[in-house]
């Protein structure tokens, strides 16, 4: 059962995605059938990922599944440690809830929407579970293609197409750059298996693949520079951030929640995996240079995102800039490189995913009521729909870092980790949070107390399912905040300590071929 959970988790959504168009022909696009089908697909995936999560947290070593029975380093393997399982369960949990929300929000083409949506889920899960650098490339492409198409979901609006095209061009360049990095890695290491790469870097010997073919330091310098550049494009870190503020608002709101909450995580997760598991403690000069770059671009993203939030009129664009800011925090923490910083980064990724998804979903209810994304047109609508106002306030205050909510505790951890390295970084965290607070206050003030409160012609009230999802996620935000010390001790700390334990990672994958 354990190994099945590893294999099934990404396979269920891809099978459901490919079968959906045919099924919807049989049922003539019946919305109820399509929605039920999508709920079953995401629900089953949630179930297997919960099983996977429990299994990984109760076993001391990472779980390995070899596709087709070809063992590493020859075949492609999926290797799941606690970090991967944690990311996977956050993904499946949010995707399941957003499926409930989407039913009332997406009014046309529900079957195509869910085809792409399930494909996106499969790609994301593949990114988090894989143990092979080339399979990571494939899974990033699967995620990206689904994401480009979902950004262009409103295909009769040229602005959505334009934003999606910009995203597709920069994304395609990024993945091609990662492909070139893979060529260099393959040239030097003679392998693309992550555990095998780590073993070669740490000087462990093997029976199947011998010694590396070229200087690992030089090859790693070039390959890491290219690969991290590609991942930072996916994570929208500053020099490569420009696609995100167009692409995320252009998508339907549930998709914005998925893109801002989950898809950007694929980029930071890949950077974490490379720096903390594969390269932990090796090629010190390269890693040091890289960590300085990461800290600088992370700080730049945090400040730029915060400042540009202030001037936005489009509420979804404002939230998109906030995503850039939070990704900046996580990348800064990865740059610091200590285990505490990794813990902070993981916890912040989880908290940001939940709070940001909630913020998009609750603001989506008001956008639907007003028929507009302009903050001025949302004025006063909060009084009409208090059940959606509370989740909006919870998520906005949580993202700023107000104490009882979840993001406060990850920001606290981030502050600890950053100030151990440099007070400048900690100061960036505080200053950008304060600037972001003013923007969120502006949104909350307008929506709750603003003049107006008229529903526009053609505006629609939220369905009960949409509000219920928002309220539930708000409760999760509060619960994660209150239980934060427990969560950090029992889930985040083990994930971080297993992610930096490269010996266990290598041994789990290569136990048969490693020389004692």
């Amino acid at each position, binding site marked *: 059962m354990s190994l099945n959970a590893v294999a099934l988790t990404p396979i269920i959504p891809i099978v459901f995605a490919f079968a959906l168009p045919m099924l919807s022909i049989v049922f003539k696009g019946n919305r109820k059938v399509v929605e039920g089908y999508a709920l079953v697909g995401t629900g089953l995936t949630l179930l297997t990922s919960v099983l996977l999560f429990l299994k990984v947290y109760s076993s001391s070593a990472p779980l390995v599944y070899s596709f087709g029975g070809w063992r590493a380093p020859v075949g492609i393997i999926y290797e799941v440690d606690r970090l991967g399982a944690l990311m996977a369960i956050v993904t499946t949990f949010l995707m399941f809830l957003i499926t409930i929300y989407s039913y009332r929000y997406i009014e046309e083409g529900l079957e195509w929407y869910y085809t792409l949506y399930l494909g996106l889920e499969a790609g994301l899960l593949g990114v988090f579970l894989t143990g092979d650098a080339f399979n990571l490339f494939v899974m990033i492409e699967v995620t990206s293609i689904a994401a480009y198409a979902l950004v262009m979901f409103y295909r009769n609006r040229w602005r959505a197409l334009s934003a999606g*095209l910009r995203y597709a*061009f920069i994304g395609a360049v990024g993945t091609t750059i990662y492909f070139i990095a893979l060529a260099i890695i*393959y*040239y030097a290491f003679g392998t693309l298996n992550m555990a095998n790469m780590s073993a070669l870097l740490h000087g462990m010997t093997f029976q199947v693949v011998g010694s590396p073919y070229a200087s690992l330091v030089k090859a790693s310098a070039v390959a890491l520079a290219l690969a991290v550049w590609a991942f930072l494009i996916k994570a929208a870190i500053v020099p490569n951030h420009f696609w995100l503020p167009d692409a995320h608002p252009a998508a339907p*709101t549930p998709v914005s929640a998925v893109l801002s909450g989950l898809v950007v995580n694929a980029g930071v997760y890949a950077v974490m995996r490379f720096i903390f598991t594969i390269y932990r403690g090796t090629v010190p000069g390269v890693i040091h240079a890289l960590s300085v770059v990461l800290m600088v671009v992370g700080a730049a993203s945090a400040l730029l995102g915060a400042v540009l939030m202030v001037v936005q009129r*489009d509420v979804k664009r404002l939230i998109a800039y906030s995503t850039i800011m939070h990704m900046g925090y996580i990348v800064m923490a990865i740059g610091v490189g200590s285990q505490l910083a990794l813990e902070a980064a993981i916890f912040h990724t989880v908290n940001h995913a939940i709070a940001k998804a909630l913020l998009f979903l609750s603001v989506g209810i008001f956008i639907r009521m007003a028929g507009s994304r302009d903050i001025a047109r949302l004025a006063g609508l909060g009084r009409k729909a208090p059940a959606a106002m509370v989740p909006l306030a919870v998520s906005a205050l949580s993202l700023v870092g107000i104490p009882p909510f979840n993001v406060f505790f990850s920001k606290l951890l981030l502050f600890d980790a950053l100030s151990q390295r440099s007070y400048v970084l900690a100061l960036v965290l505080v200053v950008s949070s304060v600037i972001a607070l003013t923007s969120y206050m502006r949104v909350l003030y307008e929506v709750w107390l603003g003049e107006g409160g008229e529903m526009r012609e053609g505006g629609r009230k939220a369905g009960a399912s949409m509000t219920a999802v928002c309220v539930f996620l708000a409760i999760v935000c509060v619960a994660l905040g209150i239980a934060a010390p427990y969560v950090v001790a029992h889930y985040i700390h083990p994930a971080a300590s297993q992610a930096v334990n490269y010996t266990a990672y290598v041994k789990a994958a290569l136990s048969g071929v490693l020389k004692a």
Partner: protein
Amino acid sequence: MLEDFLWGISVVGLAVTLVISLYGIAVKPNLIKKLIALTILGDTANLIFIIIGYRLIYPVKPPILPVWKRSYVGTFAAHAVDPLPQALVLTAVVIGMAVNVLIAFAIIQLYRLHGSVDVRDLRQLPELPELTGGDEE
């Protein structure tokens, strides 16, 4: 001598093509030309992978086992070219096709709606009418 020259030419050629394609994607205003540059970038990356996979450390023969016997495997492994880069490039070609088709469709649709494939026509800031058009319809 001639072999070195040819190798040098092809490596320099690849580097130049890579730069040209990135230039095309970044600078050309026409989306079709950007797409063409993107396909050139993808092909160059594939060719780089093939060249890098073609190690010059052993004599190269096609990776075909001549006789199905265990004793041949040793010589086969010592003489055959590494087939993995080709397999990886095949995968990348298929993925690249999917991305290119999606982008091509989006450009056609954009042309139908907007009457232009020039990015300079797409650059104006979102105006209020469009914003109030809202998230729906």
